[in-house]
């Protein structure tokens, strides 16, 4: 019974961390049709910002939930102004340019922080269930993922801002004719996407030893999850995170963590072969 509980928690945690990792990329890709391959580095920077803020004396939760997203969002804003805005509508070029940016940020982080592992301890202690030790921080991550999805849905569906954003994504010319500048909306969207990446990086930072190349571990997973999710932003994110998290945890428990990762990747290849437009290209069409 205890084992079942532990497995369920681990599974929810795997799904939640996939949601967190992919949310920023999903916003940027889903709304602007831009693949940000520097997404992993935004997460890495979120982690470094958190660690720096904590060592400077800030509260851990303030650093993770406020400082890191704002700082990384601002970095994203600069990137959008300098690079991305010249490349709208050129999917492959944006991929290449952001890949270049990711290398740039890795190099920058290496020069500033050095090629060593840094980290902070998890702010929430673990507890035991029967014979098993459960990491209390996992619940925090699950909670954050749920809040995040709810918030995204509420903003996009419930507020006027979300309506304008969705409209501009569908028909930029029409939005411009109605007096909303698509350029500003793209800018704001990219800021939000980067901020979410920073948040994810910050929240996951206590769990991993941070090195400048940490981003590489996230980008592939995020990329796969978002593409496999398909055109619907939130539904797609939930569907593909759920599926991949489930599959990878099953193989992790049954065989080994490495096989769990490999199973996730194989599942992605099979899924894309069967549903080339992603999960929501076929099912749940028209949902947000």
């Amino acid at each position: 019974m205890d084992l079942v509980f532990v497995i369920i928690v681990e599974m929810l945690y795997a799904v939640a961390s996939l949601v967190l990792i992919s949310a920023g990329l999903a916003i940027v890709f889903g709304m602007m049709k831009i693949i940000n391959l520097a997404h992993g580095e935004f997460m890495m920077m979120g982690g470094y910002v958190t660690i720096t803020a904590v060592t400077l004396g800030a509260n851990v939760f303030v650093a993770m939930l406020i400082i890191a997203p704002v700082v990384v969002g601002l970095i994203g804003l600069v990137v959008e102004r300098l690079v991305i805005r010249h490349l709208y509508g050129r999917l492959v070029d944006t991929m290449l340019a952001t890949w270049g940016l990711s290398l740039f940020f890795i190099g920058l982080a290496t020069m500033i922080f050095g090629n060593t592992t840094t980290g902070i301890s998890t702010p929430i202690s673990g507890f035991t269930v029967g014979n098993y030790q459960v990491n209390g921080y996992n619940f925090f991550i699950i909670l954050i993922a749920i809040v995040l999805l709810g918030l995204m849905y509420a903003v996009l569906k419930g507020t006027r801002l979300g309506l304008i954003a969705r409209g501009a994504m569908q028909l930029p010319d029409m939005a411009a004719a109605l007096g909303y500048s698509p350029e500003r909306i793209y800018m704001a969207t990219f800021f939000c996407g980067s901020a979410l990446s920073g948040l994810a990086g910050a929240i996951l930072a206590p769990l991993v030893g941070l090195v400048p190349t940490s981003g590489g571990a996230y980008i592939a997973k995020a990329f796969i999850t978002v593409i496999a999710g398909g055109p619907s932003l939130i539904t797609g994110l939930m569907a593909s995170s759920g599926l991949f998290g489930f599959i990878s945890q099953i193989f992790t428990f049954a065989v080994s963590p490495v096989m769990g990762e490999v199973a996730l990747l194989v599942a992605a290849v099979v899924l894309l072969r069967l549903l080339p437009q992603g999960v929501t290209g076929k099912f749940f069409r028209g949902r947000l």
Partner: protein
Amino acid sequence: MASFWAKEVPATIIVAALLIWIMPMMIGTYTLTVLLIYGMLGFSLGLIWGFGGILCFGQAAFFGLGAYTYAIAAINIGDSTIPMLLAVLVPAAFAALLGAMMFYGRLTDVYLGVITLVVTLILFKFISSTAGPEYVIGKARLGGFNGIPGFQTLNVPGRPNDYIYGDPYFYFCAVLLLIVYLLVSWLLKSSFGRVAVGIRENEVRVALMGYDVSARKTVLFAIGAAIAGLAGGLFANWGEIVTPNLFSLGQSAEIIIWCIVGGLGTRIGPIVGAAGLAYLKFLLGQQSMIDNTLLTGIILVLFVLFLPKGLVPAIASLWRISFGQRRQLPRHGARRIRSGGARHG
């Protein structure tokens, strides 16, 4: 076709011979060899991306597969001839399977990118986790993250003790690259190559004309993988060790950067881009003031923003504006480098 045999082939051979003669006077042959190998690797992606329109994020997978195939086969066989052939054939067969799966499923751009990226990651993760003694192929232990050292390097066919290394190995690689270059040039001049360019420009139209687009893309993809595998086999010989880093994302990224910087849709561009950037990296590696990765990133961003066509087409058009006679080139011909590219290379 006639002018190809009468003009381009002799011209290419003469330029290549001159370069092979002059270059060792400026750069050591040990460094030059690896530049040539990277050139071949860049060339393989330049072929399928620049002429077939297939953006493969995992060209490093075929490179690494070639290198590992060579190393494993060389340990088991002991003579280098068959391993070298296998290093070409295994990646080609693997790419044909992968390509058939993707192209018959009508996957394009981003989705193609994801799958090739994922396959590279799977190989990287798998090979990295094979440290245990149970992972053995024949006599070769896969060795996990440490890779496979100590295999038989290139020897004269049939005489396992006559190794080819140092200067002769450089000439061997140079001649191989020249042969590959000429073969690919011939392929692109043939109807297969012309249809491939047609597919790049407008896939639907070519399909409606009755060509089997999926089959042709698969074959082109496999040819690209064969060249990358050959480069991998040569690299294994040069480095005398193979490690999982050959499969890494960084390696794939570099190949794409070489093609962008050198110039897509040209044959000489990716080779020049690869050799040039690899040499730049080698020079930068000798100083520690600015991080190497940072500069690579800046170069890529700047090229995508300001010179998206790459160096070779830019220089070629500059050359045409300055010195060439004013002649009307066909629209797609303008993106292609003819014998003019070899002059600048």
